[in-house]
């Protein structure tokens, strides 16, 4: 286990790796490799189109697992809410990202990276909504979720 104090260097280096992974997936697949879209596509009848996405996710789990096991700052974890809250949030995230056509990676990294104004608007909206939600739950202190 590598003991390291988390810093903005980790944030930046991690971001560059995410960008490289997205770039490689984009060039190899010919589609915008947003995580919510890749995930949603494997929830269909199995086909050649789902297999490469599963391969990508196998890599994602391996890469994350490797870092969790070897760098202690990467394995730091503080839950956002109770399990009931997390499950409710999962429903909202699954529904919202597909209705909205993308998530933090599809709109926030790839869409904006390609220069899409739609992705910029979507990213501003989900960030604003996330900020407002955190603010509300901080102030209302709802026991179910915190």
């Amino acid at each position, binding site marked *: 286990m590598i003991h390291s104090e988390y810093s903005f260097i980790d944030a930046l280096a991690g971001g560059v790796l995410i960008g490289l992974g997205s770039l490689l997936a984009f060039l190899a697949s010919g589609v915008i490799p947003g995580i919510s879209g890749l995930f949603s596509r494997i929830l269909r009848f199995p086909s*050649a189109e789902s297999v490469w996405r599963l391969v990508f996710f196998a890599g994602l789990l391996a890469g994350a697992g490797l870092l969790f096991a070897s760098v202690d700052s990467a394995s730091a974890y503080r839950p956002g809410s109770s399990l009931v809250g997390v499950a409710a949030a999962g429903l909202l995230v699954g529904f919202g990202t597909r209705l909205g056509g993308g998530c933090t990676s599809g709109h926030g990294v790839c869409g904006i990276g390609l220069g899409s104004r739609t992705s910029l608007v979507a990213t501003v909206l989900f960030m604003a909504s996330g900020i407002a939600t955190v603010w509300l739950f901080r102030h209302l202190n709802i026991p179910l979720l915190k």
Partner: protein
Amino acid sequence: MKTKWPLLLAAGVLFGAGLALSGMTNPGRVIGFLDITGHWDPSLAFVMGGALTTFAVGTAVWRRRRGSKGLFGDQLPTRDGVGPIDRSIVLGSVIFGIGWGISGFCPGPAIANLAALRPGALAFVPAMAVGALLARIGFGADQDEGS
């Protein structure tokens, strides 16, 4: 087509390692970024800045040197591939943000946490699948073959 699998596996490894290294697999850190009136944690801005810049520069350089086709001859999507702003995108993004703010999870970090068998991820990811299917079946989202 199978020749592209090793590259997509490598892409996934880079993505997953980047998520974990960046600290974004820790929901507390993501909520720290969204909590602008509290003890604000700017890390997520560095992560997105690094990822966005790398992707934007990489795709621009590729387009200039190699043209509009990908590694295996596919026509690469442009910004027009995202489509215009409509009511679904506005509403969907706002709903996504609510779930993101409650849990500190967006899809990538939640899936990455399955590697550590975190209870939060084990609750979140199946619920996310249900939500995605609901959007597709009930609201006609996600009908095309795109990303």
